[in-house]
């Protein structure tokens, strides 16, 4: 007699529908990346080509670089599966496995946050640190503590940035320095002059419109705020990411830096705008902070994480030694994602109107406020409003 009972309720699952499920999420994610990739290609390749500065082969390079990043991490994951699991040495099971483990994404993202003209071996090294060390050694997709792309980026950033600098290239005048660390990006300018003044921070790059479009120095794809916003709209429409996480993250940075700007400088709205449009904030908020595996699972936890990310980014950016604080705060909060998840899940399950929940939420918000206040007070001593002379 056949087995009497089969399968588990519910029998209608969204995942069974045509345009749902894990693979569809991956497809949607890659579609969401397209505008950013195209922007990176336009900024670093096509635009320079149209201005007549480079040859056709050179024009293709940014695109090839990003795609190579994806391919490298794909191959590495495949090799890892083949070496560790004898069952996966045939093409079909291997492809099934890889297609459900988002193999392309870490490499693509990594290539997008690295400067153009990073040597290929550095890219391979970064992909290795991200995919193998950061993802597969932790148990594969779904078990990684850190965002693989971010881990690769940090590994490259802390060990091989000199190599990238030595290879760093110039294509046209607007991008004398493409490298995020080398010193010509808006944020490192701020870190150098420690002055919050529109004429000194924004005018060298034109207007804030250039910041929005993305024609300012920075890594391959991180400057294109417009392209990232398009990706954000698509990804939240397809429900690949929760719409409020990037919004709260960017909003927190906006508000805290507005206060910071008002305390130190002239308090104009340009400073928070400058703050959210420069560096990798937009990119990190939309594509890194929403990475599902390494961030809290429940909505309240996501809100908590986004708030913390916002204030920590301001703290690391304006008070720390390095010009960019997005990567550091992300990797720090990746570690705390699990406790944060448990903390917020308990509050959520108990109900917000319970006394204990109110106390917990209040304490958390006070903590966030304390960090923000510390950042502002500290920055007040470090920055000046800056007049001429």
């Amino acid at each position, binding site marked *: 007699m056949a087995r*009497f009972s*089969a399968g*588990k*309720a519910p029998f209608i699952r969204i995942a069974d529908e045509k345009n749902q499920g894990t693979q569809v999420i991956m497809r949607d994610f890659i579609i969401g990346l397209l505008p950013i990739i195209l922007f990176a290609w336009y900024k670093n390749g096509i635009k320079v080509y149209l201005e007549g500065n480079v040859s056709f082969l050179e024009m293709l390079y940014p695109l090839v670089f990003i795609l190579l990043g994806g391919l490298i991490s794909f191959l590495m994951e495949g090799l890892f599966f083949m070496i560790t699991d004898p069952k996966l040495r045939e093409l079909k099971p291997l492809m099934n496995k890889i297609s459900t483990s988002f193999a392309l994404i870490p490499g693509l993202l990594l290539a997008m946050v690295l400067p153009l003209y990073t040597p290929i071996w550095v890219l391979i090294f970064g992909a290795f640190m991200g995919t193998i060390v950061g993802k597969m050694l932790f148990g594969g997709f779904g078990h990684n503590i850190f965002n693989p792309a971010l881990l690769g980026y940090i590994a490259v950033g802390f060990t091989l940035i000199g190599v990238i600098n030595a290879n760093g290239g110039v294509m046209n005048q607007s991008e004398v320095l493409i490298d995020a660390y080398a010193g010509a990006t808006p944020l490192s300018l701020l870190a150098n002059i420690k002055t919050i003044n529109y004429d000194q921070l924004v005018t060298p790059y034109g207007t804030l419109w250039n910041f929005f479009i993305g024609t300012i120095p920075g890594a391959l794809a991180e400057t294109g705020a417009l392209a990232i916003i398009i990706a954000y709209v698509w990804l939240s429409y397809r429900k690949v990411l929760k719409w*409020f996480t990037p919004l709260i993250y960017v909003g927190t940075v906006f508000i805290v830096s507005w206060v910071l700007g008002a305390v130190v400088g002239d308090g104009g709205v340009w400073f928070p705008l400058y703050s959210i449009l420069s560096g990798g904030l937009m990119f990190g908020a939309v594509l890194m902070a929403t990475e599902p*595996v390494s961030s809290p699972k429940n909505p309240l936890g*996501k809100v908590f994480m986004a708030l913390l990310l916002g204030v920590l980014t301001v703290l690391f950016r304006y008070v720390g030694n390095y010009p960019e604080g997005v990567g550091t705060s992300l990797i720090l909060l990746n570690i705390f994602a699990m406790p944060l998840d*448990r903390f917020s899940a308990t509050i959520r*399950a108990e109900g917000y109107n319970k006394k204990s929940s109110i106390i917990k939420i209040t304490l958390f918000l006070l903590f966030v406020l304390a960090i923000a206040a510390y950042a502002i007070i500290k920055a007040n001593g470090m920055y000046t409003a800056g007049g001429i002379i």
Partner: protein
Amino acid sequence: MIVQKAKGIHIDGRKSMSKELPLQDYLNPQFVYIHLLRQTESLKRVVEVGEYVRIGQVVALREGWGPLPIHASVSGTVTAVKKVWHSSGKMVDAIEIKNDFLGAMDDSITPEKDPSSLTKEQLVEKMKQAGLSGLGGAGFPTFVKYQSKLPINTVIINAVECEPYITSDYMMIDRYPEKLLKGLHYMMASVGATRGVVAYKAYNSHITDVLTPFLPLYPGIEIYLSKDIYPAGWEKYLIQQITKKTYNSLPSEAGAIVNNAQTAMVFADMVEHNVPLIARGITITGEGIKQPRNFLVPIGTPVKDLIEQCGGYIDGLDSTKTNYIAGGPMTGRAILIDDLIVNDTLGSVIIRPIPDPKLSVECMGCGKCADACPVFLTPTEIWHASERGDIEAVKRLKASKCMGCGLCSHVCPSHIDITDFVDKAKALIRKGA
């Protein structure tokens, strides 16, 4: 999203397929099988093999905290006591009755002379005599609710049918609108409630049309239109929406009783004609059969017969390639063989082709389950905590709040049976406690 208000998810109803044809009577199956099981309690058989039984004759007794008599649904000879499948997935003893197609009634089935003069206690007694238990799916003995010591002022008829596919309540109300209101009227009388509510989904405006002519006859009865979301028919949700009150364990704390629509109809029959629970409406639907429709059948009818009545399977499908879902698709149970018998809690059978095996994918932590949960739990956290065996954490995460609606599994993009893991966590609490 993150603000805590009652919520749910709209699921494609797929109800139209079984609404095309009207309710069909199928009152005389060849054999009926009366399961000797109600909820989790075994019944005491009171008839012997070879005995002749009439419709409405007591054949078994439920004992324990909710004692009920169980009645024969056709007249004929008890031919055997054998093990048959129950929709809960177990094999249980059942009384097999061979129908003699005479329709002989038991003596107790006589019209009541003056139903309106019955007292509360008499009505509750009738409820008990009818062997009435919740026809919605839980199978909870109905009279127990009406013995509540707390004051009850609202009786709610739950005809929401929030699960997809199922239309039996809708079809039954369509045919017997007055019986529903009568049943509700008697139910209100048996507990002294002043307010009666019939709740169903807003898009079923047809029901409003058929009920409206009878509403003036029964004072205190109103209509509540619910949103088209799942789980709108959840008892707690319904009471919260209608009475604006919430409760912890029992609906009576909020002064309300919720009953299924068909329960009310059976009760109306019982009060006026002394007909106990012998038949119910059932939906036979799904993509796997030619003509889905609803039936009014005696309890104990084999589903196989009903599938034949529906015109059989679609081309290229036979019973070996078919999945039979007993109950709703969200909370029911999939069964691979058609040896299924209609019992008191089986409101629908959905026949679908066996789906392809799915790739197993790791949890990617998208958090859609936490987002969908109507009681604001975080299923992944509960799952991890129960895997660690951390009972304290499971308790802190309020796993006991879960009502098993299945939405978390429903929305999971990775085909993970999260509902199952949460059930295990709940079992862990029970074991630990």
